[in-house]
């Protein structure tokens, strides 16, 4: 290909040059052929140096696995945050007694009264559900021979399911009548229902709560999420009046107030109205801080974002460190490889390999290994993630994005950390390199 043109050029100075007349397409095909054959040769080299290849793949795999876990976990956390916010509802707020942001020492947390609830229901524009709530932890439930300690018994008023956008799969919601007469009726979360009644439909059945018989009137849909304070499905909901009577609790105050508005558009104004009203009802002076806390979906998201941010930071640092460590292992093993394969490099150059062919060969080898590492890492990461998920530490969402990110990261590591050894190989003087082999 070159000779005829070169011959034609004669013994002019610099006579041996690549003929310029070669078409772009032919040049491209030549380059492709060169790349392909370099790849084939590179692969046989990787097979020849199996142990070293294995270490590089292992090192990169660990980095990619961390990356996989972090991306999947962050995606999982995002999804969960969205679900939580969704469940919370964009059209609703939750008011707690006490100020959880600036909690003064000894400040009362029971500040919300029945009167507050009544006044809000009466005079807050746009509010269509006002749901006071109290709760009690760890109550013994019993049905026939099944005993179960439910971590949360919530006392509330009518329309609980509606207020929490929590559909009932069976039965009905609590009614005003239940609340008025202190009825011994209960809504059941999925978990206690299973514990007491197995797979049978619990609606209409009776169980004992601290020795008092209750009838199940509704079964709450399975939500399968572990919120901050444990499994949301692990609860029993009864009328608040029944709760305070049966467990002899204070009857004036309740812990939290769920308020649902008719529209989401004016949420900021609604929240401001609610705050003013509560401050007025609690007779707070302008300089006094709120003695309650209003939580909106946005704040829930913000709060979750902070948690997520911590997760991203922690896992991100871990993953980055792992990738960098993998990269250094790669770079060092390749530098070793270049030294060890000096003769091969010198020989190839002596046989006419231009520097770029050697560079390409080593970059290809590096890339091949890191890409193997990427695949291994994603698999390893998925397994690690599954283990962590089983331990209840994180929730993972594996997607194509994870895989693409892993490939991108591996490619970057392969190119960045493979470049120096590859350039070193390409720059080797064939005479010196061959002498090294004698």
């Amino acid at each position, binding site marked *: *290909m*070159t*000779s005829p043109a*070169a*011959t034609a*050029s*004669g*013994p*002019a*100075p*610099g*006579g*041996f*040059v*690549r003929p310029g007349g070669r078409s772009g397409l032919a040049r491209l095909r*030549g380059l492709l*052929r*060169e790349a392909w*054959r*370099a790849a084939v*040769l590179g692969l*046989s*080299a990787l*097979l*020849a140096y199996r142990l070293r290849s294995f270490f590089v793949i292992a090192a990169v795999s660990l980095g990619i696995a961390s990356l996989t876990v972090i991306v999947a976990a962050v995606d999982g956390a995002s999804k969960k945050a969205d679900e939580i916010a969704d469940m919370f509802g964009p059209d609703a707020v939750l008011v707690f007694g006490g100020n959880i942001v600036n909690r003064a020492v000894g400040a009362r947390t029971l500040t919300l009264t029945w009167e507050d609830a009544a006044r809000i229901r009466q005079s807050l524009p746009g509010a269509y559900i006002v749901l006071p709530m109290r709760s009690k932890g760890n109550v013994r439930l019993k049905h026939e021979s099944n005993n179960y300690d439910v971590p949360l018994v919530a006392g509330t008023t009518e329309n609980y399911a509606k207020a929490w956008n929590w559909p009932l799969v069976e039965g009905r919601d609590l009614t005003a009548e239940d609340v008025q007469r202190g009825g011994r009726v209960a809504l059941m979360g999925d978990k206690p229902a299973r514990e007491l009644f197995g797979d049978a439909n619990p609606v209409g059945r009776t169980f004992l709560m601290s020795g008092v018989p209750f009838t199940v009137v509704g079964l709450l849909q399975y939500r399968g999420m572990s919120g901050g304070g444990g499994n949301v499905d692990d609860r029993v909901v009864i009328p608040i009046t029944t709760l305070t009577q049966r467990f002899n609790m204070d009857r004036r105050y309740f812990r939290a107030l769920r308020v649902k508005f008719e529209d989401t558009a004016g949420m900021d104004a609604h929240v401001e109205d609610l705050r003013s009203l509560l401050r007025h009802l609690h007779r707070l002076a302008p300089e006094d801080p709120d003695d309650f806390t209003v939580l909106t979906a946005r704040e829930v998201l913000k709060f979750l974002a902070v948690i997520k941010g911590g997760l991203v930071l922690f896992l991100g640092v871990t993953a980055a460190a792992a990738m960098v460590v993998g990269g250094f292992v790669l770079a060092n093993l390749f530098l070793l490889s270049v030294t060890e394969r000096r*003769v*091969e490099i*010198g*020989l*190839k*150059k*002596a*046989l*006419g*390999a*231009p*520097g*770029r*062919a050697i560079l390409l060969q080593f970059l290809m080898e590096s890339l091949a290994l890191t890409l193997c590492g990427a695949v291994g890492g994603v698999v390893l990461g998925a397994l690690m993630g599954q283990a962590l998920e089983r331990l209840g530490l994180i929730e993972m969402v594996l997607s194509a994005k994870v895989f693409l990110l892993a490939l991108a990261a591996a490619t970057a590591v392969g190119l960045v950390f493979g470049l120096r050894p590859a350039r070193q190989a390409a720059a080797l003087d*064939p*005479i010196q390199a*061959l002498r090294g*082999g*004698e």
Partner: protein
Amino acid sequence: MTTTHLAAPGAPDAPGATDTPGTSGASGTSGSPGTLVELSGITRSFRQGDLTVDVLRGVSFSIAHGEFVAIQGASGSGKSTLLHILGLLDSPTTGRYVLDGHDVSHLDDDARSEARNQLTGFVFQNFYLIPYATALDNVLLPGLYSHKNLRAQRRRAEELLHRVGLGDRMDFVPARLSGGQQQRVALARALLNDPALILADEPTGQLDSTTSADILDLLADINRTGKTVVVVTHDAETAARARRRIVIRDGVIESDGLHGDGAVPPPGAASASAPSDGPSAGPSSGTSGPGAPA
């Protein structure tokens, strides 16, 4: 640099010379068609700290197509450096090198690689086969950088392996081949791109005498097909196989002549020109020709 020392056309050591272009013209002017290698005033200096070491101090000679030349010298004589320059692994500090019609004295790295790939074939003392590649893949190695059709190259590689007697061992990795067989693979590899110039650096240095003789026979065979062969050696017996012998000492040519004891010292040892009357003086003393004692 007018005349070249070259074997007469159709000389016994270059029977294939008739199919190399231009052997008919024995005029031997610079860059003439019959001349493959033309070195004029080649020097090569290396810096060692503040010292400049002149390894080659003005070397000039020509080699015609189809010659079989031994470059002989003790270690430190400069013969390796001369080989590196001949093989385009190194560039001269000063002087002019024309190879197969191309001025290759000062090429850049890439052009030198390509010229090496197309114009020269190397045979090394240590064989230098890639340990993880089969004999066939080793032979194909120079083809990796020559942008030629793979299938045709493969056919040629197989053909060459048959020619060096390893047709039944193409799939063997070097570790499964004897030293002599490995050097045969290296010979086949040197021939793959059909280069004009075969350079052998102590090709028998690692081999016992029987195997050495085989390899030298093979080199002679290759030469007989018209290839120009240059063997660099310190070994007189190996050098004796070549028709022409160039002895180098302390960076200059000590003698250059056709085979026999009548090697003629070039007029004015360090001066550049090759022996202008070589052809007349040479054959008179070196009559043994191809039947040189092994």
